[in-house]
Each structure stands twice: as structure tokens, then as C-alpha cells.
């Protein structure tokens, strides 16, 4: 195909795309207009029904909790997939690292990076924990909190302490925590079935004060489990990649 013909095909396709796009755009409701029935309905009943002032979390972990279970297992599957793809195959052996340039030291981590990473580690743990445990009260939740918690471990790695990093997050423990997080969520739902209630029914005491940390029953519990799962899954993916990188850096050159 000549470049001229190719360009012609592109312009025809692009014109079609623009036409369809504009057609779709014209059919949209006006900016800021939400025509669906669910938004107003949820806003009217959510706080009274769940005692959670973080209504987004109430929707995520209660009204559409079953969908969230599915999303939870997407991440679980992703972490499992990474571990499987990067596993050691039968033919592969782990070479013990050989230092090819013995006369040179590995470049040290700069003090600026090290100081900033270590300074941030503590606050990041606090923020992550706060996010994961306050889904019921304010904008936050286990998902965001979990990623932030995992970031704390990555900061330790950035500070130049891979050994500390791998000691703090041994794969066996991360595996177990991830499984406990994902399984915990599913189990909270299953527990309802055993007492004859619908799956993921909020059977825990909701508390008296809307927006209290102890309120909202299973919403807070599920958010906590999600936090565990996400932190562990993310950490697992990162350490799996890091391990490979380090092996290649040491052994491959």
C-alpha cells in the first residue's frame, strides 16, 4: 500500500470516528445533570441505613459489595499471574551473584534520596493505616490505604536497603497476608449466608453515631481486609519484579 492510500484510509477512519464521537456527545445529558434514579436514592438513605458518612465506601462495600468482591479478585489474580510468569522454571537455576567489577564499589544511594525516603516512611505508614481504617467516615478506603501502605516498603527499598526490604516483606508472609485479605472479604460475606442472611449482608452492629470510626458494621471490616489484600498484592508484584532485576544485575552482566 502506498503512503498516499494509507493516509486516505486514515482520514476516512478518523472522520468516521469524529462523526460518531460528536453524535454520542450530543446525546449526553447536560454537564452536571445526572438523570439516573440511584444517585439521589442512595444519598437519601445511605447514612441512615449504614451509619457510614463515607457514602462512597458504603456504596462500594455494601450496596454493590458483590461487585467489589469481583474487583478484589482481579488484583489477586494479577499478583498470582505475576508470580507465575516470573517463577523459576525447571531448567533455570539461581546463580549465586558474581561481582564482575570487584575493584569498584556499587554506586551508593545518594544521601538526599536516603534522607527523604526515610523521613517519609513513618508518615506514609500512618496515612496508609488511617486511609484503610476510615473508609466509613470520610473519603478513603482500603484500596487507597493499601497502595499507600505498600509504598512505605518501597521507600525503604529506595533508601538503599533492599535487604531490609526483603526482610520486612518476606514473600511467604506477603502471600499469606494477601490470601487473608482476599479471603477475609469473601468470608465476611459467607458468614452472612450461614445465619440465613443474604451474601454480604451487613450483620454487625452499625453503631449509634453516624461517622464514628466504630460505626457501619461490615463496611469498616471489609475496607480493612481490602487494605491488607491490596498492600500485600502490590508489594508482591513489586518485590517479584525487584528480585528479578537484582538477579539479572548481579548475575547477567
Amino acid at each position, binding site marked *: 500500500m502506498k503512503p498516499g492510500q494509507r493516509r486516505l484510509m486514515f482520514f476516512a477512519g478518523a472522520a468516521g470516528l469524529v462523526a460518531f464521537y460528536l453524535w454520542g456527545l450530543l446525546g449526553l445529558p447536560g454537564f*452536571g445533570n445526572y438523570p439516573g434514579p440511584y444517585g439521589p436514592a442512595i444519598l437519601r438513605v445511605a447514612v441512615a441505613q449504614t451509619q457510614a458518612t463515607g457514602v462512597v465506601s458504603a456504596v462500594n462495600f455494601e450496596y454493590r459489595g458483590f461487585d467489589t468482591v469481583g474487583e478484589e479478585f482481579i488484583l489477586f489474580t494479577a499478583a498470582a499471574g505475576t508470580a507465575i510468569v516470573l517463577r523459576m522454571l525447571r531448567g533455570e537455576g539461581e546463580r549465586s551473584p558474581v561481582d564482575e567489577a570487584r575493584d569498584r564499589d556499587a554506586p551508593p544511594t545518594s544521601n538526599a534520596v536516603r534522607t527523604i525516603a526515610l523521613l517519609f516512611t513513618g508518615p506514609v505508614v500512618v496515612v496508609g493505616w488511617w486511609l484503610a481504617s476510615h473508609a466509613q467516615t470520610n*473519603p478513603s478506603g482500603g484500596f487507597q490505604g493499601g497502595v499507600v501502605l505498600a509504598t512505605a516498603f518501597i521507600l525503604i527499598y529506595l533508601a538503599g536497603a533492599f535487604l531490609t526490604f526483603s526482610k520486612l516483606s518476606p514473600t511467604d508472609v506477603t502471600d499469606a497476608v494477601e490470601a487473608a485479605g482476599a479471603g477475609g472479604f469473601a468470608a465476611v460475606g459467607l458468614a452472612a449466608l450461614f445465619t440465613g442472611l443474604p451474601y454480604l449482608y451487613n450483620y454487625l452492629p452499625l453503631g449509634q453515631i453516624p461517622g464514628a470510626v466504630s460505626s457501619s458494621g461490615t463496611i469498616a471490616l471489609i475496607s480493612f481486609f481490602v487494605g491488607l489484600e491490596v498492600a500485600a498484592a502490590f508489594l508482591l508484584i513489586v518485590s517479584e519484579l525487584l528480585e528479578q532485576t537484582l538477579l539479572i544485575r548481579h548475575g*547477567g552482566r
Partner: protein
Amino acid sequence: MTGAVVTPYTVPAGLMDTLQVTVLILVAAGATAVVLTRRLVRQVLVLSVYGIMLAVLFLTFQAPDVTLSALTVGAVALPIVLLLAISKTRKKEE
């Protein structure tokens, strides 16, 4: 929107519109910058900045929950995983 609540922190409507339009333009520019950046590592850094812009966009549209998710995923998690993947594949080329 019905029943707008006015608090001491309420931003005047006109100002909010200006803010939203500004951030929308910034996000469009940021996305273009990500596509136009050619060096991989640099592209990841630009992507991270773009992730922060996106988070600010969600904040100006009053979606703090989505802001948090965008911050953690777009500005932190995605760049980290991409950087690791780049460093993995680059070693083989050398």
C-alpha cells in the same frame, strides 16, 4: 444540581468554573506531553506528573474518593511498576 449548600469554604461558582476549565486544559496538555515524550524513563516521570494533574481534576469536580485512587494508582503505583519493567527489559539490551 439542587439544594446547593453554602459554607464558609464555598468557592464562588464563576471561580470554580475557571478552575475546572484550567485543570481540564492542563490535563489535555499533560496527556499530549506523555505521548510526545520519547525517552522511556522520562515518559514515566511525565506520566506520574500527569497522574497528579488527573487527581487535581477529580478534586475540582468534587470527587475526593476518586482523587485518592487516582493519586495512588496514577501517580505512584503505575510509574513504579513501569519503571521496574523498563529496568528489567533494558538490562537485556545492554
